């Protein structure tokens, strides 16, 4: 970890003047949780609400900065998304530099404005313009204390192309009461995953609804795990049973379906040739499914 020390042309507050709890993150109706370094399952439809409790030694900061007690300050929470360069402000509260104060700050961010990393900071700034004086902040908005954290939203793992639609209203040949349907081209494994594979979720399906609305619930996780197993099984079996996959003698193009399946097999079936898997999948499909369950660890985590 590289520590970057920033210095200012005026005095700033000591680190100890503000004690801040963890950022607490709320998504949808779920309970708030402590913020970690990365959000694995973030996507742009998810709005984020973040809160943080602070104990501010306002008088102390003023003293550090060479300001008089009673100087108006502002405590604010600011966010910035590196993917879109967008910035915004959440709570911005006026305080007077006196004594110790407990303050809650909050930031609400529209997921659509975010990308890559989300930088969150809490800052104490000067709330008014003062007569100029050397080595002392005097412009309104001058940063006197700041603390920033970064939340990684994208870039960790790849996300699977998922689209939620209403099967009855879709106008396509989707069975009304099905929960999901995978659409892909098993014949052409060179196509990019993000272009040719799509998992449609039936918005009208009560279980899917629950899974989308409350992803954190244990039963949602169970359903998600099963769904992802089902999708993986479909992809692996579809690829392995086709001729093209087993007779391929050069590597699959980057990001292609073939590459993805190839990677799954390399990870979970080390040493097995596509030929031997194909044999198993064709001759004894039930056993093949069971082996897949075993390798992918299906339902290994018992629901609480």
């Amino acid at each position: 970890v590289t520590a970057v020390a920033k210095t200012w042309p005026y005095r700033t507050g000591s680190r100890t003047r503000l004690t801040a709890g963890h950022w607490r993150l709320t998504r949808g109706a779920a309970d708030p949780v402590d913020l970690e370094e990365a959000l694995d399952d973030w996507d742009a439809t998810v709005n984020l609400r973040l809160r943080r409790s602070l104990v501010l030694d306002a008088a102390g900061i003023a003293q550090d900065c060479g300001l008089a007690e009673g100087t108006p300050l502002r405590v604010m929470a600011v966010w910035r998304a590196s993917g879109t360069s967008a910035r915004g402000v959440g709570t911005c509260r006026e305080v007077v530099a006196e004594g110790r104060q407990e303050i809650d700050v909050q930031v609400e961010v529209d997921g659509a404005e975010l990308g890559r990393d989300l930088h969150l900071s809490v800052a104490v700034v000067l709330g008014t313009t003062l007569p100029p004086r050397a080595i002392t902040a005097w412009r309104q908005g001058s940063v006197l204390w700041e603390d920033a954290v970064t939340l990684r939203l994208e870039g960790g793992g790849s996300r699977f192309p998922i689209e939620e639609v209403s099967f009855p209203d879709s106008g396509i040949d989707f069975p009304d009461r099905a929960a999901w349907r995978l659409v892909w081209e098993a014949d052409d494994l060179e196509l990019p995953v993000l272009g040719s594979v799509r998992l449609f979720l039936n918005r009208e399906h009560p279980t899917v609804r629950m899974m989308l609305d409350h992803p954190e619930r244990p039963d949602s996780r169970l359903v998600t795990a099963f769904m992802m197993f089902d999708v993986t099984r479909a992809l692996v079996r579809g690829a392995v049973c086709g001729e093209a996959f087993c007779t391929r003698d050069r590597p699959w193009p980057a990001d292609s379906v073939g590459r993805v399946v190839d990677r799954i097999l390399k990870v979970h079936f080390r040493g097995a040739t596509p030929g031997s898997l194909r044999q198993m999948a064709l001759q004894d499909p039930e056993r093949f499914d069971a082996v897949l369950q075993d390798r992918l660890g299906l339902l290994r985590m018992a629901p609480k």
Partner: protein
Amino acid sequence: MTLYPRLRTVEARPLIEAALSAPLEELQQDRPLLPRGIVWAPTGGVRVSEARLADLRELIREAAKAVGYDAGMPLEPRAPEGAALDRRLARVLYDELHLTPHEASAGDVWRYFACVLAPELVRWRFPGKEGSPQERFGTSLRRNLFGRMWWRAFIFHEPAASDPWVLLDALGEDEMVQITERPSAAGYRPLARGLARGLLRRHRQAPGLNRGNLLRDTMKRLLRRLPLLRYESLVELELDAALDELFSDSLRAAGAEVRQLTFPLAPPREAPPLPVPSTPVRPWFSISLTRRFAFVNQLDADDVAALTLELSPVDPLESEPRWALLRGLSVPHARVVAALPSAQRLTARLGSNDLEEWLAEGTPGSWVSEILPARALSLLRLLDGDWLRVWVGRTLGEAILPDAADLPRAILRQFDGEWSDLLGWIDADVCAGLLEMFSPGAPQTSDPRSILASWLVGRTVVAPSLGRLEIPQVDPWEEDVTEEETRPAPTESVAHTAFERALREARIADPRPIPEPPGLIRKLLARVLVRSLGDLARLDLATVADLPGVGKTKVEALRTWRIEVLGAEPVVPAYVPEPAPPLPPAFAARRLGPVPGLLQRLFIDLGIFTYGDLMAIDVDGLTAIEHVGRRKIELVQQMQEAARMEVEQPPPARSPAPDLSALETLVLDGVTGRERTLVNRRLIEGASLVECGQELGLSRERVRQLTSRVLDRLQFEHATDAAALLNAECGILADDRALHRQMAALATIPFERLRLPLSLVADGWALVDGEWMVRGGPAELDRLLSGVEEWIAGRQFIEATDLERAPVRQPLLGIILAEHCGMRTEGDDWVVDVSQFDRNTFLEERLRTAGTAHQDELARWLLARQGDEAKDAEVARAVRSVEGALSRLPSVYRTAMGTFTHREALPIPEAALARLVDLCVDRMRGTAGAISTRALLDQLRGEDDHAAVVSPWLLKDALKRHPDIKVLRKFLVGYAPTFTEEGVLLGDRLEAILREAGVPLTTQEITDRLPDGLEHADAAIYSTLRNGGFAVTAGRGRFIWSPDSEDRSEGA
């Protein structure tokens, strides 16, 4: 929310090429809207339908038609049409696409629009001389025709206003670029819109002024403030007022009359009176110079932290406790501390609050301000711009000259001969910071550097970032010469030895230990580090009285006891600095020539760069520094002696041209004759092309050509590079880029020919095996060093291959390992003395616990023990290493492909295994000669119970360990006792046997005819030969031969 197709790079390339070269008519034809290779965002909305895409294409085309785009017309839009198209596009895209910023920040969406949806518009909008520029089709959000317009609409669209598009319509192209291409301004939309509004508002009052220039100037001012101010904290009106202040400054700078605008802000609160500065805190106590010196240098950070806490419990916890200790040092000792490498590192770590607090303590005799003149540059190079701003401002601003009006000149005077370096080094923002600090509230100029430069009068400034500046002859230096003279001479630091000598003469440096003190003050004496009689004599009772927890009784007891021990109240001589013989300033500022290798590191650590620095070295004091022995001291004395001779008998006046020897040695070896003259005159003496031409009888152009040819050969890009190189030799610091190029140029010179220029090393570069590395000075080296140490400490053994993962590049790593970590090399491998650890024992122990384990598992475990994240390549390497190690361990058996078993966990008793092996060896001695494992197992199965359960791998491994067994070569894989005559049948003998048996084929021919995978042909041939023919069965093939039949092979 709608998702749009994205075009991948692979598919985009041919499309862009086609769009750039195809005739316009072809581009206008409708193409498939979803070509192969399109990708989509995985989540976040619903994919747009093909029909909708077709609609969009129509809408975009209509927007273009409305501003004069006509499919039949030639490709020549004029500027107003282009701008009109931009505006229309912006509205259409923003209104129709329903994009989220998240989706719109994906460049490949816009690449799709430019390459697939409407490439003809890109060609029309940006015709260019040779087709549209490629970037207009690409993924850049600032260059792509569609992307940039969507973003502009997004930024300037004001949904609440009566005309939401008023800003977009009013701003010109250049103005929009000014705002939107700076993420720090455009990212916060209220700020971007406020800028646009402010610009329009202020420009209405000064319509004569170029609006683009006004905005450009204001943006400079804004960007300088952005890191310090949080505009997000301001409500709209406050923001408008704050921005208006910037616009007003710009207008004033442009000479326009500025009318005060009033913003209906809440009245500013009455600002309370500013606090009175707190009273200075006295340093905690005084101890002897040598003691302090040793203190700071030898204690590690933890010791110091503990000690600081004990001595001064009210002190806030310091992040760098040594700093707290150093703070206790006062004026006369400042120079000594300044010479410490640790002091330089410390200065680089100080924050503005540290300085603030510290300057309050001991103005003006702080060592920071003491070392400023002498070591300014060497320190400055370690500091960053922000730091400089604070440091210079604080140190000079309040500590030395209370009159702020005179500060800028004071700074420059402090830097004296080196200010031009300084000016070349600091950037415009730092200058702005300096100006702001000295005269807060004054309107800023948009180019503060020129102001700073204008103070540098009467001199010619040659700084790489400024070019050559001639400054008129008004010299403010002459105004107060007296003050200039009172400035302490840089050589004053030699005086401290004289002071020490005085102390010694006054018998205050008595090293004898003190007698047992009375119980009351025993602890106190330990606390103030009094151990010798000298310490006791020097102890300042007033300071002791200031210590927390020390009352009158103890002080009196101490005083009485001291008189008892010493016989009288000691008299400490006052510190009187001895005036050093003055050095001619020009000589003092001159850079040192080549420094002997032995001294280079020392000189860098001490910051000795000029003759002034050299003469200031206190030779006696050097002994206190680690690793300085007689040799080094002698060398320093010789250098000082030589320099002294030079001062007394200056060498004959040299020609005004700079010393060329350095450049010649460095680069000009291969350049002779006319070219050499040219290089000297043109590059070094700075003659013009015409002058050179006249002297050499060449045309101006020819001179240019020749010069550039020589430079090409020397691998310089421009004449300025060569100049930068020379500058470095003459002591003028090049800016970073130039330095970089210069490094590149130097690297092309064979190492042995390169005299190491000390100035370059001082900049934090080291030349190692002809490669330049480590930027950032001693502090950086130190950081690397501790990084490596930490890295080594975390593991229990290091293999040569591990070094590739070390946090430092080779070969610097080599130096660090060899010099600092006690490692030595043997051949290509590093031999490590890092621990008592033996990897093999370690592995064996692990295997003993596990019983049986696969080599992969062991390798991963081993890597995990080292704290490395296992990547495939590393695991593979580790597997090989584990395999090699385990194969040699007597207690470990290989029991299957890659699986090893410890002796204690063998599947059959060890004795049984030994019996089996003996049986096999007997069998081979007796009849078989050479035999394969499989044949052996077949034969043994009836004879020994364990033969049925032993795995072939285990048996094979056990056999290999038998001293009499030899493993035969590839074609004869099997085993044979080495000593029997019949035993080994290598190549030729088997051929002979085959010939005797009348087989018309050689072993190779037989092997060739067998199906793939048959490796044991030789052994099999031999083991069946006795029947008059032979049959080989292996893998999928069977090969049978007998004298009566044809040879044939058949599949399984």
